[in-house]
């Protein structure tokens, strides 16, 4: 996994609440193997007409075709658990989504793929979106170590993030390797677990 440390990038404002993973990656593309094709898949049904020609959706044209950050409203990434939604964001070049809240599964999926799902209060997200609307193509900066977002006007916003999520992103850590350090403890737990629950042990 690619580490996430700092990022200064064009930020695209998305005002709608509840942008679901079905919009990020329409279901029929879930079968596409992970790779560059996901760049086109992001928001496909908003970006392309049924005949495949591009719409006026903002990600299709400059400056937003170079976006690295999305500033959204609440409950971004709700719905389906499809990790392809994160593949699509990532391949498009999005490394950070800033929103008041996220779908729980989506947020977990982001963390496993080096994408920062960053939470700021609703009013602060709205203020940054307004700045971006006034200055299309303006950049926003994120410093994960310092836990700050610097908006278009240079104002710093402090954000909270769980220590582990922060460390894994900063170091680009592989989760499975981290867990396998504990394989002895897992096996020990398991032995006790099945001793107390013999009716389950046939599966183990």
């Amino acid at each position, binding site marked *: 996994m690619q580490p996430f440390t700092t990022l200064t990038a064009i930020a695209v404002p998305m*005002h*709608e*609440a*509840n942008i*679901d993973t*079905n*919009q990020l990656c*329409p*279901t*029929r593309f*879930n*079968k596409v*193997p*992970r790779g560059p094709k996901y760049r086109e898949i992001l928001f496909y*049904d908003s970006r392309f007409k*049924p005949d495949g020609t591009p719409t006026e959706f903002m990600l299709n044209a400059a400056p937003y075709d170079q976006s690295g950050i999305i500033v959204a*409203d*609440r*409950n971004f990434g*709700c*719905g*389906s*658990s*499809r*990790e*392809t939604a*994160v593949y699509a964001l990532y391949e498009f070049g999005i490394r950070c989504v800033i929103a008041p*809240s*996220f*779908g*729980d*599964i989506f947020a*977990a*999926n982001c963390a*496993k*793929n080096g994408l920062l799902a960053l939470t700021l209060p609703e009013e602060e997200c709205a203020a940054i979106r307004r700045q971006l609307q006034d200055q299309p193509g303006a950049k926003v900066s994120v410093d994960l170590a310092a836990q700050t977002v610097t908006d278009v006007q240079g104002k710093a916003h402090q954000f909270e993030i*769980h*220590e*582990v999520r922060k*460390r894994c992103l900063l170091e680009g850590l592989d*989760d*499975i390797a981290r*867990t*396998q350090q*504990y*394989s002895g*403890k*897992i096996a020990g*737990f*398991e032995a006790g*677990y099945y001793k*107390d*629950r*013999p*009716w*389950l042990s*046939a*599966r*183990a």
Partner: protein
Amino acid sequence: MNSTTPQSIIEKLWNSHHILTDEGESLMYVDVALAQENTLHAFTELEKTGRKVLKPGQIYAFTDHYVPTTGRAKGTDGIPDIGIRNMVIDMQDMAKKYGVTLFGMAHEQQGIMHIVPPEQGIIQPGLFVIGNDSHTSTHGAFGCLAYGVGASEFAHVMATQALWQRKPKAMRVTIDGELGFGVTAKDVILALIAQIGVDGATGHAIEYAGSTIRNLSMEGRMTICNMSIEAGARVGLIAPDDKTFAYVEGRPYAPKGQAWEQALDSWRALATDDGAKFDKEVKLDASQIAPTATWGITPEHALPITGVVPDPASIKDAKKRSEYETAIEYMGLRPGMGLQDIKLDRVFIGSCTNGRIEDLRAAAAVAKHGKAKVMTWVVPGSMAVKRQAEAEGLDQIFTKAGFEWRDPGCSLCTAINGDNLQPGERCASTSNRNFRNRQGPGGRTHLLSPAMAAAAAIKGHLTDVREIIK
């Protein structure tokens, strides 16, 4: 070893699966992991890193999202689209390669990953379940902590049989009172989501409690828990009781003999203790819930069937107004029009939300009263449901009413196997999501119960089922 602090079922299940804490995160032991064709992404991760499945006996793979719901005589060879065909074939091959239990397309127990495991007794009270699908919360109906996870977390579980989590906050939804005539579990969960919102339970695990929940069948309880994610909760559950135990007893994977007695003792101790604390409490009066349908583009946009499409102009909050305008435009509706005046092109009865035998019985009871005015599909949730329905003659009732009786799978709920709406088509659907494009690009979805869907089918428009079965 009596604890003096009263505990909720959520805490009890959490504690019994908690291996260790590291840097504020908990490593949780996973009993059962459920895969579907899209889990290929997780297997690909394992392949890339050369890792093995640690406990193949605890991983179960299902073919449901991509399988066709007609024309199965030729097996996978008969799937016309090569991309879809390969998803089924590749998943089956991967399951065999890694030695996990496979309910493949030709399996006599084939069906949806949230319908087959309870039928088989794979799901029992007290388990920590994960599934590579957001509707994994369904299994909470048995008193399990059941988490939907993405491909990376699924790969992690396959490699380690454990999952990193932070303890969710606990929310209790208490629903008391008697459900009115024609009101079902689906109406209850839609009413709840309309009340608390699509992110009303984000970050929480929900325990559903109260007399209404106790009186529901296991099928109804599964419908409720299934849609927890539609309120933002990754986990929703119900304490097991005698009804739960009766459902599990005798199923293929269920414990038998002395082991059964031992299991029962353990399961009976799972229920929330009196006085246990919750971070949030929500109450619903069952008698106030009507047969419900959605009019918009999130499950929160739900109203009693006797209602009218809201008028955005009357909404003060600018954000809500704009959300409603977007929804009404996408859905092609007029503010103020009666929900029952919404004409349909299609009806879909099935899915992990409402593809169980009780759902089909409810639909058939209504289908008896007329003939389908629009194309109507009935897709049983599993081969077992299909056989049971046929033994009861439900398929005959459907066929006589002009409903199409199909083979089990996710079908028109997730719309990835080739079953989908055409642009602009409007469908009354017993599934779980009415998001834009969910049932096919440009498709429009109205969520409702199986009985309401059957009523809509024989009228050709959204209909109050109470006017058909009196």
